[in-house]
């Protein structure tokens, strides 16, 4: 197990390294000089000089590459032209928001998705399964930003059950400094998280249903029944424990979806996260922010996959405990 873990970790680091390298070359392949905007009046002369030294803009390509690597590892992702601050700082402010959104969405996704998937597997072929299955298919096929718009319209505008966007009430709670403001934050979080979570749940339910159906067919489920166990125990203990394994890999796959969706959902709900930062940056031709965000999200995706793999290895005794038989 330990050797496997080390190898897996090394592989993850290698992937991140490759992503950073590719990003570097892509930046250099683009027209214009890296880290310098077309109109350099956005940057003060000192900043220009600092950037030149930090990123070696006057040196050879290999040297620039090494400097780039060093900077990335140190957390220096360049300077944002439009915001006039280091990219890393801007990202650092935005990441927690994206993070909470993604986490909330993930919770909704798996809570709803797993429950629905199990229900559908148990009632396979019957009305409940067919109706909810098609419903899930429809939700899974919706553009996530469109769902957000519709939810915003219905719950934010027509029913006034939820706020129409933003992180918090700017007048009453400019900062998160009281339980009441915490509640306000949660209230603002609901719709965007629900949007992402619902689409994710639809997908999770499909997988979980398939996994459960596959497991229910297995012989050991019949053995459990033959032992005189309650049907509920047979399904929720014996079957589910096996059906959850493929879902763990789904957890790893959820990360790219969440980050992609976050870009769109944050735009619709004016949620100040990384996605919205990146989109705004594009329109201001502020590409260091965009590349910084791209690098960061890639690293998080790799981390998410690593965590999922480790969880899987821990959860499945066939991997965790090595077999004695040949």
């Amino acid at each position, binding site marked *: 197990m330990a050797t496997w873990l080390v190898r897996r970790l090394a592989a993850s680091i290698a992937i991140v390294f490759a992503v950073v390298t590719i990003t570097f070359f892509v930046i250099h392949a683009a027209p214009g000089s890296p880290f310098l905007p077309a109109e350099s009046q956005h940057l003060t002369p000192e900043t220009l000089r600092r950037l030149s030294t930090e990123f070696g803009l006057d040196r050879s390509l290999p040297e620039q590459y090494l400097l780039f690597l060093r900077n990335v590892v140190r957390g220096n992702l360049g300077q944002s032209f439009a915001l006039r601050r280091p990219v890393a700082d801007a990202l650092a402010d935005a990441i927690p928001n994206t993070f909470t959104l993604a986490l909330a969405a993930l919770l909704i996704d798996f809570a709803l998705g797993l429950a629905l998937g199990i229900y559908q597997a148990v009632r396979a072929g019957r009305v409940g399964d067919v109706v909810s299955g098609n419903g899930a298919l429809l939700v899974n096929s919706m553009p996530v930003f469109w769902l957000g718009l519709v939810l915003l319209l219905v719950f934010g505008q027509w029913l006034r059950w939820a706020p129409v966007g933003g992180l918090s009430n700017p007048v009453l709670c400019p900062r998160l400094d009281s339980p009441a403001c915490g509640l306000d934050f949660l209230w603002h979080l609901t719709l965007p998280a629900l949007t992402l979570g619902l689409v994710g749940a639809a997908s999770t339910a499909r997988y979980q249903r398939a996994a459960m159906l596959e497991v229910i067919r297995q012989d050991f489920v019949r*053995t459990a029944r033959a032992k005189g166990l309650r049907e509920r125990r047979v399904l929720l203990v014996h079957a589910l424990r096996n059906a959850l394994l493929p879902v763990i890999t789904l957890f790893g796959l959820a990360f790219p979806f969440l980050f992609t969706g976050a870009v769109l959902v944050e735009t619709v709900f004016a949620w100040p996260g990384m996605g919205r930062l990146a989109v705004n940056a594009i329109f201001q031709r502020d590409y260091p922010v965009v590349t910084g965000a791209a690098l960061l999200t890639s690293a998080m995706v790799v981390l998410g996959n690593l965590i999922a793999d480790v969880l899987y290895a821990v959860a499945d005794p066939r991997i965790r*405990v090595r077999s004695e038989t040949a």
Partner: protein
Amino acid sequence: MTEPLLRVRDLKTYFVTEHGSGTARAVDGVTFDVLPGETLGIVGESGCGKTVTSLSILRLIPEPPGHILPGSFIEFEGRNLLTLDPRELRAIRGNRIAMIFQEPMTSLNPVFTVGDQIAEAAIVHHQVSRRAARSRAIEMLRLVGIPDPDERVDHYPHQMSGGMRQRVMIAMALVCRPQLLIADEPTTALDVTIQAQILELIDRLQAELGMAVLLITHDLGIVAGSADRVVVMYAGQVVEQAPTTTLFARPLHPYTEGLLASVPRLDAPPARARGRLRSIPGQVPAATAWPEGCRFHPRCPYAWDRCRAEEPPLLDAGGEPGTHAVRCWLLTDPRRRTPHP
């Protein structure tokens, strides 16, 4: 006459097929008894309904597409198993009647330890504490002959060989000291040497625990070695029923004859031994379309018009009433027992 432990009367289990090719009448009117402490063998080819019969006893048939017809009757210790409510049925499963299956590889849950799975039955049925259940599990592992049971109890199924897994299955089945063990092809998936060990184990445990065994198999050799009485099934029905020695010495049904004849014999004269193996011509018919009249007639060397027209009932073949029964018109017309050219 001792009271039978299990009485099966006219059991019918049908399956609805998907694309409307009709109903598969997998078990079509099966009747037999199991006496306390005896080993009853049910033997037949694939497709004859023996496994479905065994699953029907504990009502483990998946309800769509299968269903047990209302006229069927299965009585165990004086209660009709088919009319029990789910809670009472669960109290019997794994407790008074236990079952082991053919594939030890896939019949154990891969994510739980062997000990947990054995202990589970004890906890659920006898309400013992986890610690007590764990020591019972270790005891059972020792009983079924697994070395180092205190270590093995925490192992996972994938860490064990096929033979050991089957022993674990047996341990799991017997932890609550059932009165009846249903063994559905327990050795088919195992190596020949392991087969013998497992059968010996079941024999020994049966004697020690005083339980009855319903042994389902397609292998006549196993039946000869382990069963006291034998039921031969074909096309969803019982075609012959007799004590083992009688069946092997004096098979009356043409199908049984054919089965016995097709077994290669070490003591056959050299001429016969060099000849071709005898087999029963034709194939087992599909359960959706059993033949008219006697279901075996298309493959029977003796069949005549009556066989094609009328389905024979189970007829008594002499001796003490109820010991030897055969489903064949030859009993009424023994002169016909000459094979067609």
